[in-house]
């Protein structure tokens, strides 16, 4: 039983508007609002899953059927991604309960709630300009959250992010303008129908502008200069949310563009090549990073490179693998970030060198980190293995053996730097004078949820795959998507 899906956008906004008065009544209550609201979103997405798998659920807004009004199109893909986003959001919200306690914490929770809502909106909406608006909601809250600690580095990172992000929105707007000028519509399904009649010289330009714009959010090289700084300087849960929420929305937009809206084949090769370059550069950059979170940031970029490779293959199985990888990354990278956050906090330093012996001081926390590291390396039986395996198998099946070999090379580099950290955690003597503090239960619960999901997805990958298959099918066969949206108008 599900309620109207538009509540998934409306309620977070409503709650965000109401947080300031609520904060005046009780400061303590505010931190539970995101948990509650995103929990509702999670429930909603789980309940919608059986419906959307059968046929896309079209939600009309303002009573105007699709081409006229804005609609939410909850197909398998949107549903899965919104589910991932809500899940990560939910877990991070739990983690947040005890994370941000000083002033102005109500603003923090509000921004985080809107970040999640924006990303959810991005993956659910069926209108390209609406997607832009939600992208802006997501990125503006990201900018603000990156600088939220008001420290020296946070502001710098936020400015870089904002600079690149503004360029992204410029390009996206230009792309949308071109599309509207030539097709006369903003509804993605209708654009997909009409783009065939558009002068390909214009269409390709629109595609390039949009791919560049969304590529910035999807951390494609060389558009990802903002990412390492923003990931590493934002408050830890926000770093996790970037990896689990923001990037996912960016990749979704990219996938929607190249698969559903446009019909150009060459762009897939570009994405494939961009993917492998992204992966390699990121892994190479990560190997000698001194700061833990910055290293994780580069690793995150590298993982997105793998996803891009999968999307660039444009085969059913490849896309399934890519989606699986996105799912895994959304579970594992927050796990790493969240555990790293407390490791950094307790060791009192951002540097990897100072993590020595944390495994003995904080065993559970370090266990979660090591678990995440093993999972992201793709070691069986954790879930990272399957997604990497499918992507590589598909890469090779399509004859890109060199790309697969390079990706594997990247994986080896990744193994080196992760295991160095894990080794430090467990096999070096802790520094003198580490004052052991208590890790909040809420944080441990949050990490525990992610770890359990990773393990289950690893041992029983079909459990996840069942839902990813229709999502991949939706991308590769756009007729269902188009038909179901346009039929809603009749």
């Amino acid at each position, binding site marked *: 039983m599900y309620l109207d899906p538009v509540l998934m956008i409306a309620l977070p906004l409503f709650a965000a508007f109401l947080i300031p008065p609520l904060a005046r009544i009780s400061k303590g209550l505010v931190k539970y609002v995101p948990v509650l609201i995103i929990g509702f979103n999670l429930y909603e997405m789980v309940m919608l899953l059986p419906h959307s798998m059968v046929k896309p659920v079209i939600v009309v807004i303002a009573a105007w059927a699709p081409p006229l009004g804005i609609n939410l199109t909850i197909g398998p893909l949107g549903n899965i991604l919104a589910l991932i986003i809500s899940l990560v959001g939910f877990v991070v919200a739990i983690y947040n309960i005890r994370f941000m306690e000083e002033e102005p914490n109500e603003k923090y929770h509000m921004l985080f709630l809107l970040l999640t809502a924006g990303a959810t909106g991005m993956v659910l909406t069926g209108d390209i300009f609406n997607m832009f608006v939600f992208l802006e909601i997501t990125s503006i809250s990201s900018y603000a959250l990156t600088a939220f600690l008001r420290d020296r580095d946070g502001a710098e990172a936020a*400015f*870089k992010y904002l*600079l*690149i992000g503004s*360029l992204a929105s410029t*390009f996206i707007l230009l792309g949308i303008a071109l599309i509207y000028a030539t097709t006369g519509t903003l509804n993605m399904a209708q654009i997909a129908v009409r783009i065939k009649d558009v002068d390909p010289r214009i269409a*390709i*330009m629109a*595609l*390039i*502008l949009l*791919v*560049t714009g969304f590529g*910035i959010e999807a951390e494609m090289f*060389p*558009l990802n*200069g903002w990412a390492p*700084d923003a990931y590493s300087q934002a408050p830890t849960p926000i770093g996790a949310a970037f990896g689990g929420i923001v990037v996912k929305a960016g990749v979704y937009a990219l996938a929607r563009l190249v698969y559903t809206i446009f019909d*150009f*084949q*060459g*762009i897939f*090769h*570009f994405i494939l090549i961009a993917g492998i370059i992204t992966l390699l*550069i990121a892994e*190479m*950059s*990560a*190997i*000698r*990073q001194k700061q833990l979170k910055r290293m994780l940031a580069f690793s995150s970029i590298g993982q997105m490179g793998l996803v891009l490779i999968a999307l660039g293959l444009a085969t059913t*199985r490849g896309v399934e693998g890519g989606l699986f990888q996105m799912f895994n990354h959304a579970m594992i990278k927050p796990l790493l970030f969240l555990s790293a956050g407390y490791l950094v906090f307790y060791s009192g330093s951002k540097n990897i060198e100072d993590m020595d012996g944390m495994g003995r001081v904080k065993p559970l926390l370090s266990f979660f980190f090591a678990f995440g590291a*093993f999972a992201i390396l793709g*070691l*069986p*039986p954790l879930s990272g*293995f*399957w997604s990497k*395996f*499918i992507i*590589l*198998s598909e890469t*090779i*099946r399509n004859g890109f*053996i060199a790309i*697969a*070999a390079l990706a*594997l*090379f990247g994986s*080896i580099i990744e*193994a*080196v730097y992760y*295991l*160095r950290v894990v*080794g*430090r955690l467990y*096999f070096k*003597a802790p520094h003198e004078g580490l004052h052991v503090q208590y890790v909040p239960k809420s944080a441990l619960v949050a990490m525990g949820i992610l770890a359990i999901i990773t393990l289950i997805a690893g041992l029983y*990958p*079909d459990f996840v795959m069942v839902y990813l298959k229709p999502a991949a099918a939706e991308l590769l066969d756009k007729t269902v998507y188009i038909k179901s949206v346009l039929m809603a108008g009749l």
Partner: protein
Amino acid sequence: METIPLILSILFGTAVASYIVGKLNYLLKVGTSIVGLLWAGWLFLGLQGTQSLYSFKVLGFDIIWRMNPLSWLFGMIIFGLAILAAIFSGSYMKGKERVDFYCFAMCMTVASMFGIVVSGDLLSFFFFWEIMTWSSFLMVIYYRFEAQAAGLRYFVMSMIGAYAMLTALLIVYAQLGTFSFDALSAGWSGFSLALQIWLFVLFVIGFAVKAAMMPLHTWAPDAYTLSPSPFTALFSGALSKMGIYGLALLFFVFGAGKLASNVVTIQGISLPGYILAWFGAITALLGTFKAIVQDDAKKLLAYSSIGQLGYIILGFSLSTSMGVTAGLFQAVNHAIFKGMLFLAVGAVFYRTGTRKLSEMGGLITRMPYTFFVVLLGIITVAGMPPLSGFTGKWLIYEALIEKHLIFLAVVAFGASTAAFLYLYRLIFTIFLGQRPKRFDDIKEVPWMMRAPMLVLALLTIYLGFYPYHLLDLINQAQVSMGIAPFDLSHSMLFNSYGNVDTMTVMNIVAVVFFIVFILFNTLYKRSRKVGLKDIHTSGEVPGEEINLHYAVDFYQPFARGVSFFLKRSVSKIYASLADNLEGFFDVMRYIYTGNGQTYALFVIVALAFLFLVKDLLV
């Protein structure tokens, strides 16, 4: 429930259970793992000769688990060693920290190895292979941070191997659309020659890393040395056998043995086999030489292990039924004697706290059982009658001679002879000679540690008596691999130049041993015990501080002699390669200059680039 999945779940379950339960009590965690292993081993025994098959689908890939004689043979090695090592650890690990972690990694390794041998498809093979890699990696880094570099080297090399294998098996999948072994053996001959060669090379890299074949062996000495001793026994005895198992699969099940057999053959052996044989021989020779100059007991054994695996590869690569028999026989043998020796050295380490040969000596009276085990061990390693090592080595020589590979036979024989040197060093410096004062009051290890060693010792004696029992099993395995079973009566060992009846040999040896023993104990009863101060340097009695002992610089002249090529160590090349690569990677991150404007410029450049190539994107 089907037996194979049941065994796997028991093993993995044991791993997790011993970790979780292990938080409570020492006995519980060791007990859990021993009981779990025994249970699984018991179930496994029942699988002999059955054609158990279990298959299901994961993510649309077919997973096949099956049991055949070859798997059973290797499974036997795994379970035998694992159970003995676990019992040994029961006492060895007492009082050490993080025993739960140890039990977890150990059971995980055993489970994954069993998974490998029952895999009937490449996917589950690779799956378990990776689990094996990381779980054994956990064992290597078990001892603190010093082990990290070695552990990382082990892991990275394993990853390189595993990924080479992954590439190969994915290419197979791309070609055949399935991962099953059966489809591969049927389809292999359909591949183009170039593809066959590629696949062969990739697979061999994958397996050779685990089998520690030159020049991919550099992880082995440190990893063997640094892992806890009971595990080292398993590591060298069973885990490295997985590489051999893989080679067996590659050659005979996948059909790569026939590769190029119609194009290039050298003395009746296909080219890849011939090349591999040379790799094996060189590995045997170099491993032996390196072993001679080691001062660390475990390192010595580690190099010895590398050398012995070289023999096994040599046997396999001939692809004749005798060669394969020899290889398999030696594989089992190696598991037994290397298990024995590593456990024994572990026992010595347990009591003395050192692995340095030069610091030990004269332990024979203190640890007679261990001495006995090492004695038997070195006899069988050296390949002397009457113990099982003899049969194995003999078969290898014979297989080589049968193919008229005289030169290889000479190399192998030379390596085998040279092995005496290090083996002698091992037993002499530890057990004979003078005992340093501080070891005066050490005791023999507890029975829980003695028993596994003695079981293995008895096993090697038993196989010395009855090699046929093992050879029968090997024959069954060969049949399942599609090789003509090795007819015992064709062997020179038992034919043409006269029969060697192992039973007679054994009896003779037993009698001689007994007589010598009696003689020594009666005639030389009055032999003088020399004190520590009985060495004279320039006519002076050395003081306590220069208490020299034979064991120091034991083979110095030899070491000096071979130093010219030992210096050119492959591991140094790898290390410098790794350093340079890392330096190169490090340059990459300077792309991220930290200047937001530069990042913006990247965006603009990317956009301009896309505009420029826009016609390609259509």
